[in-house]
C-alpha cells in the first residue's frame, strides 16, 4: 500500500511538466475544436475521453469539414495507431500477473508522454505511478482545451511557444540518460533524429501524416536495431 502511495506521488511529480505542456498544446486544440462547432464543455469532454493531440486535431478538422462518423472513426484510428505499438511495449513492462482492471485503466491514457515516463521506470511498472501522472496530466489537457475554446488567442504567442517545448524537453530527459549508458541506444537516437528529419524533407513522404511517419520509422528502425543488436536480457527485478 505504502509503496503504491509513493509511486503515485512520484507519478504526480513527473506529471507536472506533462500537465503544463499539455495545457499549452490543448489550448491550441481548443481553438480547433471551436472551429469544428464544439462548445467549451463538449471540447473538454472530447479531451477528457481522448487525450490524443494528433488524433483530436485530425478529427476536429474532419468534423469542421462536415465528415461522417465513419470517416472520423477511420481518421482517429490512423492518427492514433502509434498507441497500438506503445501499448504492445507497455504490455511487456507490466508484471504478467497484473490484473485486468489495471490493464483497462492504464489503457485509458497511453499517450506519448505517459508512455514515455512509464517505460523509463526501473523494473516492472507499478500502475499507481502511471495513475499519479495521469491524475495531474489529464486536468491540464482537458482544462487547456476548455480554456482554448473560451479564451481563443488571449495567451501570448511567446508563452505558447515556450510551453510547447516542455514536452520535447521531457522526451529528451527520457531517452538521453539511457543513451549515455548504451552506445547502441545513443546511435539509435541519432539515427532516429536523422531519419525523422529526412522523412520530413522527402517529398515522397509529404502526403503522410506525422502520426503515420512516426509509426513507419518506429517499426523500421526498431526492427533493424532488434535484428542487429538483440537485447540480451532485460532487467526485470521487482
Amino acid at each position, binding site marked *: 500500500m505504502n509503496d503504491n502511495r509513493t509511486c503515485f506521488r512520484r507519478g504526480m511529480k513527473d506529471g*507536472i*511538466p506533462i500537465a*503544463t505542456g499539455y495545457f499549452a498544446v490543448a489550448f491550441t486544440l481548443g481553438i480547433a475544436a471551436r472551429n469544428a462547432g464544439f*462548445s467549451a464543455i*463538449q471540447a473538454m469532454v*472530447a479531451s477528457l*475521453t*481522448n*487525450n490524443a493531440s494528433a*488524433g483530436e486535431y485530425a478529427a476536429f478538422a474532419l*468534423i469542421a469539414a462536415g465528415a*461522417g462518423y465513419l470517416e*472520423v472513426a477511420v481518421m*482517429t484510428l490512423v492518427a*492514433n495507431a502509434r*498507441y497500438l*505499438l*506503445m501499448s*504492445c*511495449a*507497455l*504490455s511487456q513492462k507490466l508484471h*504478467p500477473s497484473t490484473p485486468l482492471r489495471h*490493464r483497462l485503466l*492504464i489503457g*485509458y491514457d*497511453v499517450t*506519448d508522454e505517459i*508512455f514515455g*515516463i512509464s517505460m523509463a521506470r526501473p523494473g516492472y511498472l507499478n500502475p499507481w505511478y502511471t495513475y499519479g501522472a495521469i491524475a495531474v496530466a489529464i486536468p491540464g489537457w482537458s482544462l487547456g482545451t476548455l480554456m482554448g475554446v473560451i479564451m481563443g488567442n488571449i495567451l501570448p*504567442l511567446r508563452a505558447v*511557444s*515556450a510551453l*510547447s*517545448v*516542455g514536452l*520535447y*524537453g*521531457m522526451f*529528451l*530527459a*527520457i*531517452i538521453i*540518460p539511457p543513451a549515455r549508458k548504451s552506445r547502441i*541506444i545513443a546511435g*539509435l537516437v541519432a539515427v*532516429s*533524429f536523422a*531519419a*525523422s528529419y529526412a522523412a*520530413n524533407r522527402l517529398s515522397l513522404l509529404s502526403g503522410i501524416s506525422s502520426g503515420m511517419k512516426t509509426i513507419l*520509422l*518506429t517499426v523500421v*528502425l*526498431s526492427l533493424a*536495431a*532488434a*535484428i542487429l543488436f538483440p*537485447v540480451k536480457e*532485460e532487467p526485470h527485478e521487482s
Partner: protein
Amino acid sequence: MSHNIWLYILVMAAVTYLVRVAPLVLIRKEISNKTIRSFLYYVPYVTLAVMTFPAITEATQTPLSGLLALAAGIILAWVGVSLFGVAVVSCLVVLIAEFFLV
C-alpha cells in the same frame, strides 16, 4: 444532414480507447521471442526521438530557439538533470531566446 457532436465524441473516444487497451489486455504473458522483445525494447527510444526532432524546431516561433532548447535539453539530460528540470529549462531557453530573436 447535421451530425451530433456528442456522437462524434463517442466515436473518437471508443476508437482511441480500443487502440490503446487492446494490446494491454490481449498480451498478458511475457513474450519469449528474442527479436520481438528487442523490438519492443527499442520502440520507446525510436518513437520519442522521431517525435522530438525536427518537431521541436517547428513548435517554436523560430527554428533556432527550438534548436537551442534541443541542445540544452540534451546536455542537461546527459548530465543527469531530472525530468522536470530538463522540461522547465527547455521552456526558459525558448522564452529567453525568443526575447532576442522575435
